[in-house]
């Protein structure tokens, strides 16, 4: 028996899965019609009962977030879907939107109804034009079908839905930076409080949710809270998309109940590429401290990963085998954080710059063993001191890799540079087996 539970991905193998016809063939938009006959508060309650937690990284309970929106305040409310997907290793929302944009739209209809929003936005990262096309077309088709616009589903409810396309800035995935960007400013994070639920877009109550979180909602409405909460673990309910990439025989998307382990996923998918061993991996993108082979049996749910010293994050499982230089990997991530630091706060802006300089020196054999302590102290001065979590994330690969691979850093010092053959870790170094 497979432990996989395709729900969101159930029909991706049909060639018209992204069309409204393809979506409706499997009951598409029926959940929305059903939800619009319920009381909005009952919809919120149902989502609360399901135990759905945000799939954007932090795992905040979705129903509770919706419940924070003040009701009867006579203000405009907004729903904003975070489709910025830029955390390194994370690659689940884009294939989802390419293969089935309508499930997101249906989820947005339900969520907007629940929080009494008449305007909803999708903030899509800008570097994925074909996803933009599919979404834009899906929105237009949903309008034509009467599922968006005035009096949707004949319910008397109105909803405008706008696709807003970014222009290359990882920080815009951070929800307050996203809101500033959507308002037409530089995408730099805002002070909190006030939280978006009180003063979000245009200073009005706003819910920001990840694509996968919202896309999970129609199935919950259709099948009920119990169906959903029967999957997963005690505090991490439901199914989710795990993205496997790197030195594995078969990279790809795996929809499974929360709590599955990497060992199980590797077994299902064909394992590490032949002749090689797992060296280190990320459980949830580059901002989550790395794991090693010792963590193969860690349950991949919020509690399990956290107890093991990392974070479930975006469930982006990037797998690296023994050919990979950990310092090279970490330097690349650090360069990424430096490139993507928004520039607002000192620790992140200056700290990432300095981290990169030290790591580069180490990679080139120009460092010393004392540099490792300097790196760790610098990370200590950035972690928890920066304005938003980007700065914190920048320190995770460094501190966790020094914890597990201090000797390998030292080897760069003693070896006078990188002791690895970088070609050995490429995809084309050896033929991929299986597939």
């Amino acid at each position, binding site marked *: 028996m497979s432990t996989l539970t395709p729900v969101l991905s159930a029909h991706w193998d049909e060639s018209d899965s992204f069309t409204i016809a393809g979506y409706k063939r499997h009951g598409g938009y029926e959940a929305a019609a059903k939800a619009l006959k319920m009381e909005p508060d009952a919809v919120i309650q149902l989502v609360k009962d399901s135990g759905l937690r945000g799939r954007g990284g932090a795992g905040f309970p979705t129903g509770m977030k919706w419940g924070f929106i003040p009701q009867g305040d006579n203000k405009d409310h907004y729903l904003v879907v975070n489709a910025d997907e830029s955390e390194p290793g994370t690659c689940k929302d884009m294939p989802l939107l390419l293969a089935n944009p309508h499930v997101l739209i249906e989820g947005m209809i339900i969520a907007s109804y629940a929080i009494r929003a008449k305007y909803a936005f999708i903030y899509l990262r800008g570097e994925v034009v074909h996803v933009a096309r599919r979404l834009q077309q899906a929105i237009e088709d949903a309008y034509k079908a009467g599922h968006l616009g005035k009096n949707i589903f004949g319910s008397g409810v109105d909803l405008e839905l706008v696709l807003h396309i970014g222009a290359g800035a990882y920080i815009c995935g951070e929800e307050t930076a996203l809101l500033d960007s959507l308002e037409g400013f530089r995408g730099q994070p805002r002070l909190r409080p006030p939280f978006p639920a009180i003063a979000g877009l245009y200073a009005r109550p706003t819910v920001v949710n990840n694509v996968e979180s919202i896309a999970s909602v129609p199935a919950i409405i259709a099948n009920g809270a119990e169906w959903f909460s029967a999957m997963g673990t005690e505090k991490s309910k439901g199914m989710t998309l795990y993205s496997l990439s790197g030195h594995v025989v078969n990279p790809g998307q795996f929809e499974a109940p929360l709590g599955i382990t990497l060992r199980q996923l590797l077994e299902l998918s064909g394992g590490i590429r032949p002749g090689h061993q797992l060296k280190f991996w990320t459980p949830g993108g580059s901002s989550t401290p790395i794991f090693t082979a010792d963590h193969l049996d860690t349950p991949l749910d919020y509690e399990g990963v956290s107890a093991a010293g990392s974070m479930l994050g975006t469930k982006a499982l990037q797998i690296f085998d023994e050919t990979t230089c950990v310092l090279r990997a970490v330097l690349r991530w650090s360069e990424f954080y430096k490139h993507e630091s928004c*520039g607002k706060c*000192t620790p992140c802006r200056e700290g990432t710059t300095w981290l990169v300089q030290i790591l580069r020196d180490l990679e080139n054999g120009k460092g010393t063993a004392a540099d490792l302590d300097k790196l760790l102290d610098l990370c200590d001065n950035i972690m928890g001191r920066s304005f938003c979590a980007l700065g914190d994330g920048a320190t995770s690969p460094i501190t966790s890799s020094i914890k597990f691979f201090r000797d390998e850093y030292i080897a760069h010092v003693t070896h006078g540079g990188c002791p690895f053959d970088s070609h050995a870790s490429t995809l084309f170094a050896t033929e991929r087996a299986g597939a």
Partner: protein
Amino acid sequence: MSTEVVDMITVIIDGFEVTVPKGTMVIRAAEKLGIQIPRFCDHPLLDPVGACRQCLVDIEINGRAFPKPQASCTIPVEPGMIVKTQLTSAVAAKAQEGVMELLLINHPLDCPVCDKGGECPLQNQAMSTGRSESRFEGTKRTFEKPVKISAQVLLDRERCILCARCTRFSDQIAADPFITLNERGALQQVGIYEKQPFESYFSGNTVQICPVGALTGASYRFHARPFDLVSTPSACEHCASGCSLRTDVRRGKTLRRLAGDDAEVNEEWNCDKGRWAFKYVTAGDRITHPLVRGEDGELHEASWPEALAAAANGLGANRSAVLVGGRVTVEDAYGYSKFARVALNTNDIDFRSRVSSDEERDFLAAKVVGSSTTYRDIDRADAVLLVGFEPEEESPIVFLRIHKQVRKRSLKVTAVASKLSRGNEKLNANFLCVAPGAEADAVTAESLTAQSIILVGERASESAGLLSAVAALADRTGAKLAWIPRRSGERGALEAGAIGNLLPGGRPVSDASARVDVSTVWGADALPTTVGLSACAIIEAVNAGQIGSLVVAGVDPLDGENHHQTLAALKKAFVVSLEIRPSAVTALADVVLPVAAVTEKSGSFLNWEGRARHFEAAVVDSLNRSDVRILSMIADEMNRPIGIPTVKAASKELASLSTWDGARAKFAAAKPAKSISVSGNDALLTSWRRLLDEGTLQQGEENLAATARKSVAVISPKRAASIGVVDGDAVRVSNDNGVIVMPVLVENIHDDALWLPRNSRGSHLLATFGVASGARVTVVKD
């Protein structure tokens, strides 16, 4: 007054209790205890950002500790809060030290050649909170430097620590977001859009609040070190806003002026004119010796006794009058007021050396003198009505104050004018567009709450009946009323009685008991009883041979209408001129007496609120004397002593006169003028003076002048279409007296109107046309 109840909250900081109003940020609560938490981006008048992370402290609330240090500039106090700063928490101390180290890795540490060296928050705090040596061994960021972001502000990006004070100021306070943060991450930097320099009237404030030497003023750059300067608190002489300033002098020369800190008035800001226009004082053409016109018809240097004797002789010979400009101090104005009554035995005195009317004089006596509307009233107002007044151009701190409320609570602003100004656009003002001359009807049609405030400018006198309509509106609605003249001395001169219908303290000349009050203090037998002539009438009387001599001080004949008549009168009369630099009056004067400039003397101005703005001499070794001192000497020479030989004596005596508590002069409403209709290429002139123009007090400061708004002639789209011009085309504006050719700008202006700036490059309206507003001119394509 409303009694606002403020919740107070008690917190413990480093073991000490402090009680502060709810909403106070931790960093400021600590200040109350004398605990200084280091900071850069924090500024009490800007929205908090928490960007620099220098102010991190440890906080727990009701036993629950925050997992990480918090930015004390963004966290408001809460009940049960216990704060540990760097003084008592190792975590906070390490966090601050870590941030400081990071701030310095890309800073050039070029303090020895930096203007800010010696008064630099970064330098100071690096000493107190930083590590003794940096562990940074890499390469620092470098930029091309300095970048001229306007003619007067230079940006050194390497020194910038990206606190965003300057950009927040320009956006939040000045509403001129011409400087912004650009690029991202480590490349982030302050900048302008290449074709739009930082030409904000308030740009100098960014230089002052920059916590490092990244922004410097072109005029001060490399000129001095802070420890060479002697600083004196002073008051700004440029307008009626009444900013408190600090004047920094080295060896008798003013090198810079900074905004002073006065929460009631200018908060911590000032405008660029107040900051940078001070070189007129040290201009090469200062009058340094008395001059007397000789038999040969030329002015010759004379000794003080000679000159005083000549003045006394000339003034004693026949009926005299006094014309004093709007820029003298209260004490000096009082000197002129008393000199007229006691030494010259006349009420013929007027401080309004500009376009003015008798309606205005009545209005001032009935509605303005002794009144006290304040900046705080703007803070509390339901709505603000602007009449004949452009706050940004004519009293910039009033603009900032209104804007603050517009931003904070969407204060409703309505402007009665013929053209929508940029300032009013920034205030989001409701623009009541009227034809020049038709303002009174619009005011009459307005409705206001009693909590509203009407701000009326001196230009309201240019439209007959307008001040009457304003007075009626205030009476009808109970709204507060304030008169805001452009010049710093007008309100003081009014209170000092330098006007024909009032004695000092707002006492009506026509009121016998008022006269008795004053004559008692003055020890004079009797005071002249007839109400004096106003400025225009004085000129007419000279030209009609009824007045033979004039005392003239700080008056530019070209500031008024019909300057040909004024010049004729000056030629005809015996003129004693008190001046700091040669003017059109000097050329026609018989005796010229040099007086001290503002920085060289003590004294006070009354700002538009009627609030005294006292200042001491900043340049102490000046030989120049205050006007009141010289007037006393002339009076002595005339044997009609006025007995106020010093500024102090004048001030004391004026204070002893206190404010009149008798009946105010009655206000007799004037009728609006008949509206003029125009057709074809005729238009009605409308105009005002901009903050930066060709005013004499701005001379000598080229960098400042280069940031002035360009002169343009403004017409409506309809008129532009009818005469066939587009933006930038030249138009020819003319009347019987002259012609002005000017590039045109098509904007939101009444179709019947044409706007030109006064006293600006290429547009000397009053000199060319002899009229200011409301008169007919012809506009055609040039």
